[in-house]
């Protein structure tokens, strides 16, 4: 059985004017245990809404989402979330206390908590930074804390919402490489949201491309079969890039035409 099943999931909102706005429609997808799935799409396509529904922050208005065959009903520690910005970190707690937060919620004894937190701080390359408070750390380091905090709680799945979107290009590249190493070391299942084609190909075992919004849905899913360290100069990589870019360009053009017609 797949770890996650999206079954014809849709999400509509009522706008302030009272119109109905569809963010996501007919979204169906199965995620397997241990895979790194990148959900890629132009901005406004509803990919963050997909993640918010999987996390349980928002309920779908159509269809259902299953985890291990059971309908998802609100957030739980099954699904750890890494947010784009740093506003989810607890500024009154130091790095270690942030990482062990989930364990503390479960009443894990202090000593054990400390040991686990240190292990995950080591894993994300923050050895020796445990006493620093989030405002004292750089953007990249803060995202590492978020990743360690989510992993230390041992969720069934990691949901990442453009976690490197706010980082500079250099740091982003480093973080991508390290995230892939962490994924390979831990065998976690990951849903990774991005609008960056390179990021999706560098990280994903599969890449799902969404149609342009509003009312985005999954257009195609591409398995990325590249072994080991992925290089942007690899001809196979370039092939994937060209293919995905073509799809996205087509989608964006269509969206622009549509909104022009509507106007």
């Amino acid at each position: 059985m797949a770890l996650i099943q999206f079954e014809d999931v849709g999400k509509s909102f009522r706008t302030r004017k009272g119109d109905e706005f569809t963010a996501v429609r007919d979204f169906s997808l199965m995620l397997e245990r241990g895979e790194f799935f990148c959900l890629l799409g132009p901005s406004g396509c509803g990919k963050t809404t997909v993640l918010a529904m999987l996390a349980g922050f928002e309920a779908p208005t159509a269809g259902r989402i299953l985890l291990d065959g059971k309908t998802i009903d609100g957030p739980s520690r099954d699904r750890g979330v890494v947010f784009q910005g740093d506003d989810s970190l607890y500024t009154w707690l130091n790095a270690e206390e942030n990482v062990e937060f989930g364990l503390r919620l479960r009443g894990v004894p202090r000593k054990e908590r400390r040991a686990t937190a240190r292990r995950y701080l080591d894993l994300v390359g923050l050895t020796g930074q445990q006493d620093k408070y989030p405002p004292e750390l750089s953007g990249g380091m803060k995202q590492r804390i978020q990743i360690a905090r989510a992993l230390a709680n041992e969720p069934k799945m990691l949901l990442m919402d453009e976690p490197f979107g706010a980082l500079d290009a250099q740091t982003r590249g480093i973080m991508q490489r390290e995230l892939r190493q962490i994924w390979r070391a831990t065998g976690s299942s990951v849903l990774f949201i991005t609008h960056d084609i390179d990021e999706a190909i560098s990280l994903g075992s599969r890449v799902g491309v969404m149609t342009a919004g509003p009312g985005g849905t999954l257009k195609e899913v591409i398995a990325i079969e590249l072994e080991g360290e992925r290089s942007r100069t690899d001809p196979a990589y370039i092939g994937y890039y060209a293919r995905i870019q073509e799809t996205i360009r087509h989608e964006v053009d269509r969206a622009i035409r549509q909104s022009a017609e509507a106007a």
Partner: protein
Amino acid sequence: MTGTVSRDGGSPAATPVRAPRRPERSKLAMAALGVGPYLVSFAALFLTWHLVAVYGVQSVLFPPPTTVFAKAGVLIANGTLFDNIWASLQRIATGFFLGSALGIPIGLTIGSFRFARKLIEPWTEFLRFIPAVAMITISVIWFGIGEESKIFLIVYTTIFIVILNTAAGVASIAPNKLRAAQSLGASKWQLFALVALPATVPFILTGMRLAMANSFTTIVAAEFVSAQFGLGVMLWNGRMFMLIDEIFVALVALGMLGFTADRIFRFGIYRFARRYSPVA
């Protein structure tokens, strides 16, 4: 706020909160460096006052600091100054802590539940525009001329500003902080106790600091109307009997007390709640 800009500012680099301690400087020297500018500034204040009084105004209605300090010495020696200060401070402390103890839970409730906000806000929004000094007469009628009326007024002047700041603090918690905790398995109670409450602490402390300043205003006015002792009594009697020097002693005492109280509060925030930055 200057101390916090570097912490919360956009700079992604690891910004040290304080300059690293330099080992070659002794603790005493560090303390002197910390307090030195304050002392210089205070000296300049009194010097200016002296110059203006002695060479500018040249009137018994504006005594120079030397005269005022001499008078303070007399009032300290016969005990009246401390009796008055103690009377005012006790009232402030009791009312301030009582008002905060009531205001914080009310503010947390308003900030947490929309229904509670709608229910309580008309009260707070109505009452907070009636200044505490306007309540002096009725509070004396209700509670008599004893301590109760003064403490009621300090509670009154404290509670609304604490409620307002606390509620604003709860309302301004980043939703992702709560979402992250939910994804880590937090219960409703844990969301409140481990996320919402600590995230609100800086706002609560700010409200309390502002309330402290209000308390000073209110106590003086309240003591004008009815009290045996207190700095307000000193000021009022000073006017009745033309005791200009005593008025100045009371004014300087108020300034010093307020300054000290604020420093203690800031030190307390820094010492015990530094992790709940920002500390202004």
